[in-house]
């Protein structure tokens, strides 16, 4: 396991300059996710219209992996349908656990989180934003 697989330029960049950071004032969906073991705390808020995510933002604090993952995720899901997102999140979980070979195109920037698979203790960090998103759209 090499650190450079985990702390890539892109991840550190997302961590230091997160995209879509903040709260949507009147979201159609939102949820809070909490990772008790390291204290990471994330709030995801969405505007969903006709089953399509029009806007997505996150706030909260946490480690580089959880923050970068949230930043990339909020970029990725905008414009996607809820069904597409459900599929995407499953593929994301598989990727960060190192299951099912190479990730496909649809992962977009999220492929930079592939390296997490080599750091089992960090999988929870990478998945927190996605689990929170899933919770939000379930409501």
């Amino acid at each position, binding site marked *: 396991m090499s*650190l450079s697989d985990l702390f890539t330029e892109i991840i550190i960049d997302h961590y230091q300059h997160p995209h879509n950071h903040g709260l949507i004032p009147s979201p159609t969906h939102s949820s809070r996710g909490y990772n008790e073991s390291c204290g990471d705390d994330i709030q995801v808020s969405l505007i969903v219209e006709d089953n399509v995510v029009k806007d997505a933002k996150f706030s909260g604090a946490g480690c580089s992996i959880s923050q970068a993952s949230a930043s990339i995720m909020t970029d990725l899901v905008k414009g996607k349908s809820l069904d597409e997102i459900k599929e995407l999140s499953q593929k994301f979980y598989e990727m960060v656990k190192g299951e099912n070979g190479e990730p496909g195109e649809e992962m977009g920037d999220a492929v930079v989180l592939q390296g997490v698979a080599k750091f089992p203790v960090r999988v929870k960090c990478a998945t927190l934003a996605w689990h929170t998103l899933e919770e939000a759209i379930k409501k």
Partner: protein
Amino acid sequence: MIRNNIKSDFPIFSYWESRGKPLIYLDSAATTQKPLRVISTLEEYYSQFNANVHRGTYELSQIATDIYEEARSKAAHFINAPQPESIIFTRNATESLNLIAYAWGLNSLKEGDEVILSEMEHHSNLVPWHIIARHTGAVLKFIRMNGDYLLDLESLKKNLTRKTKAVSVVHVSNVLGTINPVKEITALAHEAGAISIVDGAQSAPHIPVDVQDIGCDFYAFSGHKMCGPTGIGALYGRYDILEKMEPFLGGGEMINEVFPTTSNYAKPPYTFAAGTPNISGAIGLKAAIDYLEEIGLKDIEEYEMSLGDYAAHRLAEVEGIHIFRPHTTGTGVISFTIDNVHPHDISTILDSEGIAIRAGHHCAQPLMRKLQVQSTARASFYLYNDKSDVEALASALEKSVSIFSPRRINVVK
């Protein structure tokens, strides 16, 4: 003095060394490594003397009972308890504290009664009281912590009233390393007519403890944090209080007579010993105490303090570091944060260098809020650590800073 070659007493270090991944273990506040002597004691027990205790009517069981009871005497002697019968074996400090909360608290506390804790408690000395407060209507109050991470005894004095029934305080903080003045706190509690409870999870392993000198009524500790096996802890209780207490868990061993719908109970400590105990755990704890006593708790304390001071000074050189440690009375626990590097990331970077530290809230969420952090990184030293571990830690922290430096010049190799 601590022997130079002390690491060689602990097989785990040579195991990882031989695999080319030397282990720099700086998480002893979570659990400590075990010397060969403790490991061999478990093996010997199961290969030679294993039998159930107390009820046996044959020699093997008598041998097992004798060594189990020797472990109790040893634990009593270790903290200078007045008699072996004042030591109750539990799973860990957490169960010891719950035992007090349930067996004493559930039966003694009434609506409006007050229990005083502190702002630097571990969850194990908070959550049991939340549960008992919910059942009884008792109220919890808190001794404040000052800016140098010390408890403010004035705030204790202000909180003490005739309604105060117990003061329960951590002896050594697992986050700050602060050594609290439990003797003074006990005296104040007693003056107000309250009992005094001390969470000794982080003191028993690291500093000499004398419960009679402290004067406390209860003292809780864990074996696994002091070179002993997991699954064994102890609770010291003042014998006359134990005698008046209702039992906690019910079952074999703790009874005198059992009828279908009622029972009466054995004398302490057996009142509080339901079911087959962790026999090998107790015997392993005895081996651990033997080991620590041979080295000497006074020497361990001095060694750790000076290593802790050294580490605090060395780490202070790391760019952007904030160390949460009192200027006085610090032990071998160093909690810190580094600007722009999350504790969890620090821990991963250190791990890749074979350095094990902890990142998180350390089971002290209210204290984290008070410190206005979400989590900290924590290095905790024990007798098998030395200055070379501090150096390794410091340079790995410097590496962390450089990986996360806002304007990175080097690409991570």
